[in-house]
């Protein structure tokens, strides 16, 4: 039942984001795998549209924060204010208390603000004056980063990049789709309805966890992880967290494709999106190329 729903969700999503079925699929995978998404792209290619549509279709509350250099942690987390009526201090929740948060241009904020967000991403809770306050479940962050304008920005350090399950870019649409877009053939379709009832998404996420992972898959993934560490091409190899997230994403992919077990293709397909952004070549060359080499040299049998 919910599988059908996933299909219709993706279909609708692909009607909103034209000609990029992979990006829409990946973002759905990211959400189902309890990961966070980093979109690295220039403005105006539909990042906000994607995240808004994703949140709406999944039936999750959505908030958007534009990150700027003067943004403070409290601006996103919230703050404690004095309530005159009750004569008590009361915590006023910030925009972070939502299920889907779009952190636009995250690299414009100061590291302090960035890390407040990143800590929440990792722990799914925030600490206010020694108190732990849990964030909604699921908690899904889509952060965007503009790779071109680097002046006056604070690019996310490598350790922070590891917090994101995936990094994708949307890219320019095909001429055909852009034409459709320009001609406004399908209009600015904003009247879409959520596909899922509240609470259904958590069930879906639980089902993703049940996707079977055979020993052969573990062996394959492990040998890939080991090679990123031992090849000597990278500053650091992939962390165990990277491995866990990669596998979880593969589960989600298999789930979306209505399979009950992970196939090696899933692992291979996701490598570019779940692993490449965590790796940095020693000689400054492209990490995804080096990663592809490793994949090409690892036998699947």
């Amino acid at each position, binding site marked *: 039942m919910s599988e059908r729903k996933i299909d219709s969700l993706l279909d609708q999503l692909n009607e909103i984001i034209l000609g990029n079925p992979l990006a829409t699929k990946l973002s759905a995978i990211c959400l189902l795998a309890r990961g966070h998404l980093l979109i690295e792209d220039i403005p105006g290619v539909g990042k906000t549209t994607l995240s808004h549509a994703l949140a709406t279709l999944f039936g999750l509350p959505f908030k958007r924060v534009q990150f700027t250099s003067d943004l403070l942690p409290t601006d996103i987390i919230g703050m404690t204010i004095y309530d005159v009526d009750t004569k008590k201090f009361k915590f006023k929740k910030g925009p972070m208390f939502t299920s889907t948060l779009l952190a636009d241009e995250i690299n414009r904020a100061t590291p302090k603000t960035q890390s407040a967000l990143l800590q929440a991403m990792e722990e799914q809770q925030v600490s206010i004056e020694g108190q732990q306050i849990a964030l909604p479940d699921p908690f899904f962050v889509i952060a965007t980063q503009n790779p071109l304008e680097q002046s006056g920005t604070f690019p996310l350090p490598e350790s922070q990049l590891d917090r994101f399950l995936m990094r994708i870019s949307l890219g320019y649409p095909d001429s055909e789709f852009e034409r459709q877009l320009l001609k406004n053939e399908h209009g600015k379709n904003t009247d879409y309805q959520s596909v899922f009832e509240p609470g259904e998404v958590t069930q879906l996420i639980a089902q993703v966890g049940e996707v079977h992972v055979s020993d*052969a*898959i573990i062996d394959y993934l492990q040998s890939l992880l080991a090679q990123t560490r031992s090849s000597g091409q990278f500053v650091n190899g992939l962390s165990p967290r990277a491995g866990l997230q990669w596998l979880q994403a593969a589960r989600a992919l298999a789930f979306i494709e209505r399979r009950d077990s992970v*196939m*090696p*293709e899933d692992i291979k397909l996701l490598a570019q999106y779940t692993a490449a952004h965590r790796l940095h070549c020693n000689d400054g060359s492209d990490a995804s190329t080096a990663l592809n080499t490793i*994949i*090409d040299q690892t036998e*699947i049998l």
Partner: protein
Amino acid sequence: MPTPPPAHALGRRTLLLLSSTILVAVLAHYAIASPYIASLALLVWCLKTGLIITNKKNPPIIVIMLFTVLSILMILWFYGGWNGQKAGISFLVLLVTLKFLESATLRDYFVICLLLLFVASASFLFHNTLTTILIVSAFVVVVLALLFIISSPTKLPFSASIKQSFNLIARALPLAVLLFFLFPRIQGNFGFIPSQDRLDSNRELSNSLVAGEFANQAFNDRLAFRAEFDGSPPVKSRLYWRSKVMTEESFFSWKVQAPSATELRLAKLRKRSPNELRNNQQEPIRYSIVHENSADQYLPYLDYAYAPEVGIQLDDHSVFKDQTTNGIFAYRGASYDSPTVVEGLPINRAKLLTTRSTPKARTSALLGKWRRETRDPRQLVQLAFDYFKNNDFEYTLDPAELIENPLDEFLFDTREGYCEHYASAFTTLMRWQGVPARIVVGYLGGETNSVGNFVEVKYLDAHAWSEVWIDGAWHRVDPTAAANQTRIEHGMEAFLNIWEQGELANGRDGTALADFLDPSGLRRALNTIKQSWGNLGYQWNKWVVNYDFNAQKELLAQLGFESRNTVYTLVILMSVGLLSMMLFYFWQLIPKAARLGESQQAFLRFLQKFKRHDLFKSLSESPNEFGVRAAIAFPEQALEIRDITDRYSQIRYGKENSNIDSFKSAVKQFKLKPTKYKDQSIEPDAENKKMKNITDDFYVAGQLTENDFPELAKSGIKTIINNRPDGEEAGQLESSEARQLAEKHGMDYHYLPMVGGQPLPPMLVDDFKSTLDESQRPVLAHCRSGWRSSFLWSMGQIAAGNISADDAIKAAGNAGIPLEQARATLEAQQS
């Protein structure tokens, strides 16, 4: 920092297992060394085992010390010193039991296991038969298993430890075999003094012959030697194996006179070269002997040996070796049936006529009677022989005791005896008659092993006969033959068989013998088993135990290392040995590749079938991805291919346990048919050759001929695409000619060949589609039958999303082209 030794306590069961292993070593000691020392070891073992069973503490140190002192004293007493192999192994066995008595920690038990391994290897100094090897191997397996059990901090089941033990041995085996062949076999006794370890000479041929004692050998079924003849072996009654010659008589017993130093020196000088053999007119009987361990200095050779390879031939034809060797030894012999060799040497006549005993009254009368009849030595021999033959002399294994005048009593009263009685009596009689005579002791006959085609001679085959000097030559006379023919003709085993059945006394000599000579049923089967085992032992001795330095040199020569001298050989052997050890060490260091599972091996076999048709799975290609690609390349078998790859994916990555066996059989049954694009499923008859429309402006057809072109042009075809490679069959229209014909009739012509039996070229589908798109309609594509053209068209159209696979198959089906078989490939194109 070395890791600290393990410090876990051993369970009682482990201790009892260790205890029983030690018991085996102690009991085996009875078979090797002094039973008194073995008993002492057994006593110590009992003490400790009792302590283990009753869960008591070890005895005080003073008790252990006492046992130690006792052990040392006993070894000194029984062996007269420390030297010698027996003293050594006794010392080892006592060491094991005493260590066992005092052991309390893990370290002690480790030491015991190592000592037990030492004992096991030392036992080869005493026995190296096949049986020993089997027993010792089993023992070593158990000791190694014990080591595993002891060193494991957790409880290790016995079966698991045995498995590990076998594993360990299997790893060591290649190196062991290599070292066996190549490690230098230095001859020598390694400091042991063999003189202290005289073999049990009671069990061998004695150097003296005492009446009544020799018969004991009849029950000694220990193996003496095995002989293999180059040709077929002579009959049993001619197999007189000469070992030693006895010339000194004293009161009915005989003694060997050891050769003096001068005699030996002279014999050595006389040692003939083998070349001389060829000068002899008669062809000798040639054979090789593998002799069991023996301390006897006289070597058995078939009468009459000529130029023996090993040992020195003495004047009396016996062969003497001045050094005793340890263990099994082999030599070759050449013998003549009769003593044709001219005796150039005078005999010591006086010595050969001397007797200590003197004839008593009855004997004197007999001798006088014979002397009156004849003076001719030949007739005297015949008279004596006939005397035994005609007076009911009996051949028996337990002759009556001869008390005062042995010869007299034997000749006139008891008239029963073993071969020594007859030989001894006959020889003495001859000497008294003035005919030089002597006794020869050796073996007669032996059991023929028909499995290995050799003769097995045991100590029970020991025999004594006489030789008399007549007309300047020695003649063999076997007086036993006068008393019993069975022994001579069929061998001792046959005689023993009758003897055991008690038939001899009953006078029914026949049935048991016939039964023995031609056994039936169970007995024949038992005989075959016995002979097979004997043959195994023989081959073992011949090839393994007897593998010595010379054999090693020969092996090396065959491998191309011709040895100039011993040092050179040694150096080569050493370096090869060291090198192989190093290689072995490094080989052990190489990490082992993960072993492939059953399903993976089957999948590899599946991939192998594609390799023959130039389709390879790239390293990182997943089974599914390969399946899709292979299905496109071999569309006719697409369903089968996808089925196999799907099953494999399910086995490897799937959730449910799939049936590996059915997958394996599917792989086994799968045969790649390289003819799939030759579309042999349709016969291109006249009907098929006609053009068939797939769509309004696309047609397919079979092979075109020259005559078809005007017609095609007439029917309005604008473009022709040829998908059939040139030269697929004889008489096929070449594409270049076809092009000219097409152009002549105003049609465009494209040549896009699809080669049968090979993977689909990646660009072909795209090329076909773009050609189609850019061409003037209507278009006709053709191959042999139209299958390939329809397939290419469908692939392109499906990929473009113009039609579904179902539609394509239906459209082709309407035109009579069976595309169904490529359904999986076409469907794969859909997504």
